[in-house]
């Protein structure tokens, strides 16, 4: 008797994200966008598994002198349209990214030009040496130039709209999955690309449904009823707890991001270092971490040692993590030039992230013990990102989750602390410190990993002295998943990618049915 | 002699309200012989309309009403009839015409539809075409010149006088033996009202219909009724044949009422009390006109 192979039973992977996935790879920024991008498109390099760094992907090999990078491309890659992938497409993809100026295009701000040396060779020229460039390429998905050119929408200039209209609903990639349908309010349905140049393993899902905007309670029930496979990482810890208790597996992604409580250093009273230090010591780190604990082993947060999460290049050792110390806090407060009775802190939290409300309340309670009054303010994201553009409008305290978009420390803390980057949602501290600036700039140009690690460690220390931020915890993305699916990249440390989101490469997942 | 078409004896009516019991009728008696036209006259609120509605059995179903006394229709005690039997009488053996013809016809259906419905009461299962034929004939009877057009009209498209005629035609369509007319046409013009009365008089005479005619207008009553009852605050105070009563009113209230009507012959306005103890004087009965079943 031959075992009945489920030839007809196609496997479906169902997962969800809170935000709507952006199909246009030139505009991708957040987690949902990344999931789409990593599966529909390919990049020249891939993040290494089990440690930092990158490995070849579309590019077989590369050479660099710090300012120019030359890549040799594989010749066996075809787009889903059937068009071959060539150096022209790489150039086009970079040009498009820069022309749109959206998403993560800032990562390529210092790329002067890209040129196709021959169909299989592409050369990038930077304006100045920029060592994180290779990891930035993780964010340069290669777009099918021919297909896009055939589908240009209305617009000015040669490239009209650069295919924005087309790419917001269609794919033009070479990735392992094709887009079947895309409804921004419902789901994006993807199916495996049989012609993928690396092949798609048989155990990988045939169809993937990435659902958007499901309520936590809905996801919880769908999983319990066996109608969903992987949750987003944004579920409240209680829900994850309930799911785990119900037999779901917990998938964890670490090392890419942190939860930061940011203090506006330009306004009374947090322009005073002592005041900031007082708050730094008043915050109850243990309670904060406990709040997001899910099981004894798994938590959405682990104690932070500094600005860089553990495991990232240049992260401070775990022993340097903060703990609450009320006496110290009182000491610092006594030295502060403002008296607690003279001010009221605005503790803001972003409306879209309900968890932050609890931290606001925790802080409020913690600070009250120092005699500091505060009021909690919920701000929708749109308003928040608007307010932080002016120091005087920026709340005293803001809470943000920041991740390293390329896995490189530069992309995590340059945008947060370099004085030239002040006034974005990442940098509501408005930190202006020459030493920090100098260290961050140096980190960009040094080429050896050891040197860079030392530089970032030093930057971390300096930042802790300046205390612009309460480093609440290193964020771990925790996903609850049904037993139907295995995600080695999220369960096996040695297979973990050094870039958040890349673990959701569907072709590396396994359906167990 | 056969039983009178309608016989009411010692009818009492009270309404329960939060202020206690409100006595409206204090035991009235009246009767109408077959083909007789009897009027019930009295001031506003004296209990004329409720009497009519009791006869039709409309008050009995109100939860707040308490009715006692005898109401006999063609010799049958209404109280002893089942709800079903009482129901069956309405619209077939007895029917009613209301004061304001336009608001008494349903505004959202054509006359034809409503007429059909009425005819169905008398002849269940009557077809639309047959109903229409009979309606046309009935409208002809009430001197409507374009019955077809009227049938296809809605009440608001017709004048008050036309609606009044339609109502009369409907009320007589099933040849009832009792027609109750509650202040018919007082909502209309003087001239139209006069025409209406003449018409009703002719038709009921022709069909030998007994009529209970309710009005507060003595002039109208004089022209229409054979006999009349005067009611004052829920009590019948005087009754008798129309001519006799108008010539020789005996009850103080009747006298006052008659006196108060301005005359087209002039003579000014007399000084009369609009309320007086004397009006509560006991019922004046004329010889030969007592209520059946009672001494007299």
């Amino acid at each position, binding site marked *: 008797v031959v075992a009945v192979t489920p030839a007809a039973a196609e496997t479906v992977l169902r997962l969800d994200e809170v935000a709507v996935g952006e199909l246009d790879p030139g505009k991708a920024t957040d987690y949902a966008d990344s999931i789409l991008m990593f599966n529909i498109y390919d990049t020249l390099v891939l993040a290494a598994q089990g440690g930092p760094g990158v490995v070849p992907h579309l590019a077989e090999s590369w050479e660099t002198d710090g300012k120019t990078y030359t890549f040799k491309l594989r010749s066996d890659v075809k787009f889903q349209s059937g068009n071959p992938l060539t150096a022209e497409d790489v150039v086009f993809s970079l040009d498009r990214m820069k022309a749109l100026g959206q998403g993560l295009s800032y990562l390529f701000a210092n790329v002067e030009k890209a040129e196709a040396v021959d169909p299989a060779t592409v050369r990038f020229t930077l304006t100045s040496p920029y060592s994180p460039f290779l990891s930035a390429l993780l964010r340069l998905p290669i777009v099918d130039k021919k297909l896009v050119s055939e589908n240009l929408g209305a617009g000015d200039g040669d490239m009209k709209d650069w295919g924005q209209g087309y790419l*917001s609903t269609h794919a033009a990639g070479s990735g392992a999955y094709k887009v079947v349908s895309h409804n*921004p309010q419902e789901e994006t349905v993807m199916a495996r690309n049989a012609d993928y140049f690396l092949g798609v393993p048989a155990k990988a899902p045939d169809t993937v449904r990435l659902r958007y905007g499901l309520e936590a309670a809905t996801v919880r*029930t769908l999983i319990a009823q066996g109608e969903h496979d992987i949750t987003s990482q944004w579920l409240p810890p209680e829900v994850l707890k309930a799911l785990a208790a119900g037999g779901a597996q917990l998938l964890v992604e670490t090392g890419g991001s942190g939860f930061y409580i940011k203090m506006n250093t330009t306004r009374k009273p947090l322009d005073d270092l002592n005041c900031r230090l007082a708050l730094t010591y008043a915050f109850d780190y243990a309670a904060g971490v406990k709040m997001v604990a899910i099981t004894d082993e798994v938590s959405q947060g682990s104690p932070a040692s500094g600005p860089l999460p553990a495991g990232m290049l240049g992260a401070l050792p775990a022993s340097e993590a903060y703990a609450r110390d009320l006496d110290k806090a009182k000491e610092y407060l006594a030295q502060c030039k403002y008296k607690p009775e003279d001010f009221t802190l605005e503790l803001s939290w972003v409306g879209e992230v309900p968890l932050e409300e609890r931290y606001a309340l925790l802080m409020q309670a913690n600070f009250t013990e120092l005699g500091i009054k505060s009021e909690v303010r919920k701000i929708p*994201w749109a308003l928040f990102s608007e307010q932080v553009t002016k120091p005087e409008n920026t709340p005293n305290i803001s809470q943000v989750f920041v991740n390293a978009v390329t896995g490189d420390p530069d992309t995590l803390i340059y945008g947060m602390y370099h004085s030239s980057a002040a006034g974005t949602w990442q940098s509501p501290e408005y930190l202006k410190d020459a030493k920090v600036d100098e260290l961050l700039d140096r980190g960009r140009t040094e080429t050896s990993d050891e040197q860079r690690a030392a530089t970032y460690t030093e930057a971390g220390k300096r930042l802790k002295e300046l205390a612009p931020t309460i480093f609440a915890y290193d964020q771990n993305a925790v996903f609850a998943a049904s037993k139907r699916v295995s995600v080695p990249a999220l369960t096996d440390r040695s297979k973990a990618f050094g870039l958040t989101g890349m673990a959701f490469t569907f072709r590396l997942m396994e359906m167990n049915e | 002699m056969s039983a009178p078409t309608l016989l009411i004896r010692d009818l009492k009516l009270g309404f329960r309200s939060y202020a206690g019991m409100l006595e409206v009728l204090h035991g009235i008696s009246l009767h109408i012989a077959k083909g007789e036209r009897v009027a019930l006259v009295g001031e506003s609120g004296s209990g004329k309309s409720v009497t009519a509605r009791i006869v039709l059995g409309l008050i009995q179903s109100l939860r707040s009403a308490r009715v006692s006394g005898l109401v006999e229709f063609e010799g049958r005690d209404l109280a002893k009839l089942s709800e079903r039997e009482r129901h069956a009488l309405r619209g077939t053996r007895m029917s009613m015409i209301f004061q*304001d013809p336009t608001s008494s016809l349903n505004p959202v259906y054509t006359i034809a539809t409503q007429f059909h419905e009425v005819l169905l009461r008398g002849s269940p299962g009557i077809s639309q075409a047959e109903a229409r034929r009979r309606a046309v004939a009935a409208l002809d009877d009430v001197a409507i010149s374009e019955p077809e057009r009227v049938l296809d009209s809605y009440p608001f498209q017709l004048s008050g006088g036309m609606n009044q005629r339609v*109502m009369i035609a409907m009320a007589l369509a099933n040849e009832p033996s009792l027609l109750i007319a509650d202040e018919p046409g007082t909502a209309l013009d003087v001239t139209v009202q006069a025409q209406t009365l003449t018409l009703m008089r002719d038709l009921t005479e022709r069909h030998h219909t007994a009529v209970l005619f309710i009005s507060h207008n003595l002039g109208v009553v004089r022209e229409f009724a054979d006999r009349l009852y005067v009611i004052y605050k829920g009590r019948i105070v005087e009754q008798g044949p129309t001519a006799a009563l108008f010539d020789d009113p005996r009850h103080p209230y009747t006298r006052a009422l008659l006196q108060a009507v301005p005359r087209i012959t002039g003579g000014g306005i007399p000084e009369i009390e609009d309320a007086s103890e004397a009006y509560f004087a006991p019922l004046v009965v004329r010889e030969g006109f007592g209520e059946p079943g009672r001494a007299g």
Partner: protein
Amino acid sequence: MLPVVRLLAKRLGTSLIVLIGVSMLIFAIARVIPGDPARIALGPNASAEQIAALRERLHLDQPIVVQYGHFLSDLARGDLGVSLYTNRPVMTDIAQFLPATLELVLVSGLMMVLIGLPLGILSARYRDSWIDNLIRLVTLLGVSAPAFVWAVILMLLFAYFLPLFPIAGRISDSFTIPPATGFLLVDTLIAGNVRAFGNAAWHIVLPAFALALSGIGQAARLVRSNMVETYEKPYIEMAQSYGFPGRRIARKYAFRPSMIPSLTIIGLDFAAMLGNAFLVEAVFAWPGLSRYGVAVILRKDLNAIIGTVLIISAMFLIVNVIVDLLIAFINPRIRYSQRAG
């Protein structure tokens, strides 16, 4: 039937004026209040030049009156701009999401009529009896909680604790229905897939009922009170005097005239569902326009806000025109009146 045509023309004219007013109001609300749409559009990392360029492209640097002019001329071409939320033309979004909302609202409306009106009639016919009191109690409860509370309660009871109904979406994943009208209940039938139709119907029950509950309550209460009033009318007494059966009087003689005053308000209630759908769609992950509306409002996605509000109020106005026509249909006085309206 000429008066009806005239009535229709007049109502549509007024609606258009109102719609222009709505566009001005919503445009003003969206633009006058501080906040830079260009910055939000470009995301947190955009440079000042990029923002300035986009501002210029969106005419945001011009006086509001000029902006409004641009808006109107774009609107005339059916262009509502691009949503910052989905990065697609707002028109595309609306076209994709409106049917889901309409389907939900229409089914709710149907429930409101099929459940609410009979309850109201029953209540009026047996007024002050225990039936009446029971119906009044239940319908009042229905209107006493917002749709989202009902949505949550129904979901808790009938999807979580008693898993009788699905908790999210419009149809199960296993069905692939080629889109035709966007109304799944229709598309499934077009596709000839009865099981899919059943599945879609099964999905819509809870959200539609949650949305309909207050409408059912309102309709029943309204019909009751108007019918009670109608019962006092002389023509009811006349009908009674002809001995028409009580049921017939209720249904034919009292109900229909009493619908004339009721309909306007029932229409408003029905139209209000478009607004309340916001809450229910959020709870049931219903991919409709209202959920889109919430998302874009929270993101201050101006084009999408304006587009959504305009469409919703246009729907609202259309519903009201339809109601006016219905009233004209019921009320011959309007149908035949020389003076329309």
